[in-house]
Structures are given as C-alpha cells and as structure tokens.
C-alpha cells in the first residue's frame, strides 16, 4: 500500500517525562497504566482522538506520543497517575517536542542521580532503618507504620539536612 503523503499524515508531539517511584517500574506496567489513566479521564473516544502512546521508557524517563492538539490532555493524564501495581509513583512532564530526536536531545539528556542502597538505624526524625539515598534525599522504613499508612506510601522521606549524621 502506498504510504500517506506527509501533508495528509497526522502531526504528533512527543511529551518527555520522568518517573519517580518507590520500586522499579516495568515498561509494560507503565504502558498499561497510562492507557488506563487516559481512558478513565477522557474515555475511549478521547484516547482515540489524542492517540496517546508510550514510545520509549528506560525505567526513570520516557516519551509519550500524542496528537499535536492534545498535549495538555497527556499532561493531565500523566498527573493522574499515582500508583502502579501498589507502588507509589509520580510522573513529571519535562517538556514537549515535535520529533523524538529533539525531545531526547532537549529533555532526556539529564544527569542521573544514582540511587544508592544504604543501611543504618536512625532515630531522628523517626526511629527506623534508612535504606536508600539519592542526591540529598533519604528514604526510611519506620518501625511505626502509622504515618506511612496514612500517607499511603512505603517510606518516610527526609533530606540530609534533617539528619546530618547520615552523610
């Protein structure tokens, strides 16, 4: 079949995003979740119009393709994702580009701050076990689960400034 002429093809935009999560997220699970979130927010018709589709995802950052008029819809869809497979996540939009190449060059060339696994018992500001560190951010598994249950997360989040002994 003859390919469509460029003027007749749909124009797309590529939305670059980063994903912060408690545990690593698989690409398949993210794809399913983005589709479910878009379907729940805009319905089948809305998803078919916006053409939302995950183009690439490497575990922490990725690209979503959509129709050029539906970029805010994708931004809203990514904002409504709060959990993937009982794992709290936050998807943050970095920016939008017209081509995959430009999106990667502009937004996805960021330095990765590597998450280190640590293990030390802390008492400030909560008693528990500090398990990992990323930049200035430290995650603690508390002994008392009340706070994490209330916030529906697994870890208490502090920074190095909250507990200077952890440096």
């Amino acid at each position, binding site marked *: 079949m003859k390919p469509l002429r460029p003027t007749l093809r749909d124009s797309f935009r590529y939305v670059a995003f980063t994903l*912060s999560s*408690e545990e690593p997220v698989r690409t398949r699970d993210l794809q399913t979740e983005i589709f479910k979130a878009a379907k*729940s*927010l805009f319905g089948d018709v809305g998803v078919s119009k916006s053409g939302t589709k995950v183009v690439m995802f490497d575990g922490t950052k990725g690209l979503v393709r959509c129709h050029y008029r539906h970029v*805010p*819809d994708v*931004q*809203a869809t*990514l*904002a*409504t*994702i*709060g*959990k993937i497979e009982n794992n*709290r*996540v*936050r998807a*943050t*939009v970095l920016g939008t580009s017209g081509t995959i190449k430009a999106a990667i060059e502009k937004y996805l060339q960021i330095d990765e701050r590597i998450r280190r696994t640590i293990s030390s018992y802390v008492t400030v*500001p*909560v008693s528990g076990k500090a398990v990992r560190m990323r930049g*200035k*951010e430290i995650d603690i598994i508390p002994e008392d689960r009340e*706070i*994490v249950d*209330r*916030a*529906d*997360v697994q*870890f*208490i*989040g*502090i*920074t190095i*400034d*909250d507990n200077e002994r952890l440096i």
Partner: protein
Amino acid sequence: MTPDYVDISVHAFPEGADTPKRLNLVARSLGFAAIGVTAHSPYWSQLSDSSAISGIEIVAHSVRDLRKKIAFFSDTAPIISVHGGDEQINRAACSDDRVDLLMHPDRGKRGGLNQVTAKIAEKNGVALGLSFGYFWKTREIERSRALALQHQNVALCQKFGVPLVITSDAYSHFDLRAPRQLKALARLLPLEDKEATAALSSAPQNIIKRSTQKEKARV
C-alpha cells in the same frame, strides 16, 4: 517570565510522610518557588522549616468550636485555613475575615457553597482551596463526583469573584505535581490558563502577603 508558583497546602511529617525540607526540595525541582505546610493540628507541626511557610488547617466539629479555634490560632499561625465539608462550617469560615483559605468545601454531601456563602467569602477575602488530590487518589465514580462538585464551586466563585487557590493537598512527595500539570488538570474544570496561573501564583502570594501584613499589625 514564569510566575512564582506556590503550593499553599501540603501536609508534612509527622502528619504526612515527608519532612518539610524533603517536600521543599521536591517542590522546587518541580518548579515551585515555595510551599506552605498546613497541619490539621498543632500537634503535627513539630518540625518547622524556615524555607516553608507554616500554617494551620483548622478541623472543627461545630461552628462554636471553629470560632474558638480561629480566635486561638489567629495570633500564632501565619496562614489560617479551614478544613471544609460541613455546610455550616463552610459558611462560618467564609464569614470570618481572619480565615485565609477554605479548603475543599465539597467534601460533604453537596458542593458546600452557594450564592450566599460565595458573596460572604468575597467580602471577607476568604479564598477557595481547590484540592486536586482526588485526581490521582480516586478513580471513576468517586472522581467524577468530586469533579462535578468542584466544577459547580468554581463556577460560583468565578461569578462572585472569590479568589481560587489550587493545591495538591499532598501527604507525601508522590502527591506533589508540577505547576504545568496542575494547570492541565485545571483545564478540565474548566479554568482558563490565565485563571489557573493566578490560582497557583498570585492568589497564594496574596495570602502570604496578607499574613505578613497581619503580623506587622500585631507587632
């Protein structure tokens, strides 16, 4: 130039899961200039951080209790917001000019606001706090119901000139969202881009200005 965005109502450790410093760090990386930490009880606001604006979200079980608590906190807390929901509490909060913010009046059975409360709120300079947490915490029936009630309140506030404030009402850094994403969600209410920008920048900044003026007056 991008305006200075402020998320005026987040809940920090020990009420939420992250310390004010952690929330501030994440919020700044998302594009916020500042955050306001409002605790539901003074018991929760043990960890104060100079980089975050502190406030209180008053939870009252009756109008009398609310008035008592407003009188008590108006001298100490820079930002006074009221945990809305009950229609009588919503109305009492709107009638008091010491209140800065009425959070989620739509938590009750109905929208929680009507033309009378909206007019009083406008007169007393009480802003309506739109908590966007339900967008990522709920789905389907619950979310569409919340969206419908918020839609009704936004229309009322637009008609009577009540300032709107968009907040994430976060209990952890996973509940924070970037300003541009909150604006994309605000489009669904529907709020225009200009209105959403004001609800994230100038409206919360006015609340902060008001609190500093009040403090000066007290001194």
